[in-house]
């Protein structure tokens, strides 16, 4: 194989939450990989396990209820799952970073922006002239008037600005992978576009791989090279953006694409698919999408579907469906 080795390879990841009502599996055997400099989109309805997948990779699942039950997460060839908390602390920020969804709550309200950026620099072994380095970093993420803003508190900034600061923090250690969990959902449309451009710019400059989690297929079309579609804790389809958009091979993906009127417009209509995703403790034997699938039959309801080649026939296009051949 001439393909570059993936920088991040997740294999058969299973994550559980211990709730008072019993343990539920929120990530149920997820595998994907991301290459250097590549942007992978993860899409799926609310509750499909996108964030739990991201938090598993970062090893910051909700405490004390979250736990990786099995699987491996290879970052640059090293499995993160067995690492101790101390070892993991050294990897976070330096080798893998993350941008959270809501800029209004992700910065610490009692410290200045500068303090929080400098902290990230210090974690990454930067010494001396830290204030100037923080200002430079803020400039890099297009924070206007960085010399003054570095002394501001988060509550004195707009959402778009705060998300830029979060971006600056995530690149302070020049990680090889950045996971962005719906980083633009809380922003206005115009600010969203600027932020996406910023991410593209960062990627071009640093060659970092990005895992971009979103509801928005328009953003996927614009920003991502490949995508995985998640449903009820599983990946139901995976492929290049072109292949999946041109030849969707899972009924859920088809429905998602149908609910997007214009690929370049911000949409949030995943909910337009009739019915709701199953409650995770109700998932039975067969295909989890069966209750909402127009093609579902008895086999779908009783036997879990195999992973098959996607309709594009490209070697990296897959879907988990009994009837993907019947989609036209």
């Amino acid at each position, binding site marked *: 194989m001439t393909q570059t080795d993936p920088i991040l390879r997740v294999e058969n990841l299973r994550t559980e939450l211990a709730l008072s009502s019993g343990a539920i599996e929120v990530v149920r055997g997820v595998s994907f990989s991301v290459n250097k400099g590549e942007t992978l989109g993860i899409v799926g309805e609310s509750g499909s396990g996108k964030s739990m997948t991201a938090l598993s990779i*970062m090893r*910051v699942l*909700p*405490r*004390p209820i979250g736990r990786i039950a099995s699987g491996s997460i290879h970052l640059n060839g090293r499995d993160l799952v067995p690492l101790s*908390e101390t070892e993991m*602390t*050294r*990897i*976070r*920020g*330096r080798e893998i*970073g*993350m941008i*959270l*969804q*809501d800029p209004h*709550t*992700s*910065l*610490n*309200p*009692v*410290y*200045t922006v500068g303090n929080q950026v400098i*902290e*990230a620099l210090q*974690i*990454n072994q930067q010494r001396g002239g830290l204030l100037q380095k923080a200002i430079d970093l803020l400039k890099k993420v297009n924070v206007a008037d960085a010399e003054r803003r570095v002394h501001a*508190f988060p*509550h*004195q900034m707009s959402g778009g600005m705060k998300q830029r600061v*979060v971006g600056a*923090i*995530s690149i*302070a*250690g020049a990680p090889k992978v950045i996971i962005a969990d719906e980083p633009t959902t809380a922003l206005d449309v115009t600010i969203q576009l600027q932020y996406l451009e910023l991410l593209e710019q960062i990627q071009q400059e640093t060659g970092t791989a990005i895992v971009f989690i979103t509801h928005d297929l328009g953003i996927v079309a614009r920003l991502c090279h490949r995508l995985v579609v998640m449903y009820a804790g599983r990946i139901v389809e995976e492929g290049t953006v072109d292949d999946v958009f041109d030849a969707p091979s899972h009924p859920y993906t088809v429905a998602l694409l149908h609910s997007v009127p214009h690929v370049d417009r911000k949409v949030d209509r995943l909910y337009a698919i009739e019915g709701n995703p199953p409650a995770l403790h109700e998932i039975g034997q067969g295909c989890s999408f069966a209750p909402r699938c127009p093609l579902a039959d008895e086999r779908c309801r009783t036997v879990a579907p195999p992973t098959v080649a996607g309709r594009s026939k490209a070697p990296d296009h897959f879907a988990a469906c009994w009837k993907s051949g019947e989609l036209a």
Partner: protein
Amino acid sequence: MLTFLLKRTLYALISLLVITLIVFSLSHLSGNPLDALLPDDATPAQIEQVTRHLGLDRPIWVQYLTFLQNAAVGDFGDSLKWKGQTAAEVVWQRLPATLQLGGLALLISIVVALPLGVMAAVYKNTALDAVATVIALLGQSLPAFWLGLVLMWIFAVILGWFPTSGYGGLSHMILPAIAMAWFQVAALTRLTRSAMLEVLDAEYIKLARVKGVRERSVIWKHAFRNAAIVPVTYFGVLAGSLLTGSVVIETVFNWPGTGWLAITAIQGRDFPVVQTVVLFFALLFLLANLIVDILYALIDPRIRNT
């Protein structure tokens, strides 16, 4: 920041004024002060003389202003029980004892409760958390005087490790201070724990973790500083209940502070002294709350900038 503090100080002064008004009115509501001052068989001439001397023949608001004027310079009249001393002198002499004991109790509360509350939150649902919960439960269901007596009985009477009561050094202070602090430890631990639990769920804690901050720093730098607002708020209440608690505990342990003084003065109908104690307590309480406001502003920039 400065305007914030000025505003708070102004509020404190207004509260103080209201308190003086209440204290003053109480002294008039609780019957004619003369009854307390004069022997039962006083002659009309004596009554006349004392009335004039105290200014009781003047309009009430003039009396209040005089009272304020005197209070401002610490003049609350002469003590009736401790002859030859002014009320202010009597209280002033007892104040250090109360501050020592209260200070030690405060120190114990903070040093025990804050780390315990923080750790109970961090290790939620573990044995440590259970221990903290039991302490909190016990502390809040045991009355301080009863705990004081039990402590005295076990550690002073039976084991003889500490003196039973009276004024003295650290060994005299430990039992009463623990008795005073116990309830506060309980309340403060519970508050700190729940405040920390809430903060530990915040997104900025998640961000601190994903950016590679060490766990200890996540807890103390990122979480505790935010959670601290809650125990700091309680500090005002804490100071107040330590003062009122001193009345009970000082009496139980025969500790000659202002709390003990208050009881003794009430029993001896030494009204000027009672009045002075009340005003002193009010002043300390307002001071504690002013400190709370300052701490607030130091902790949280959002408060500072409003």
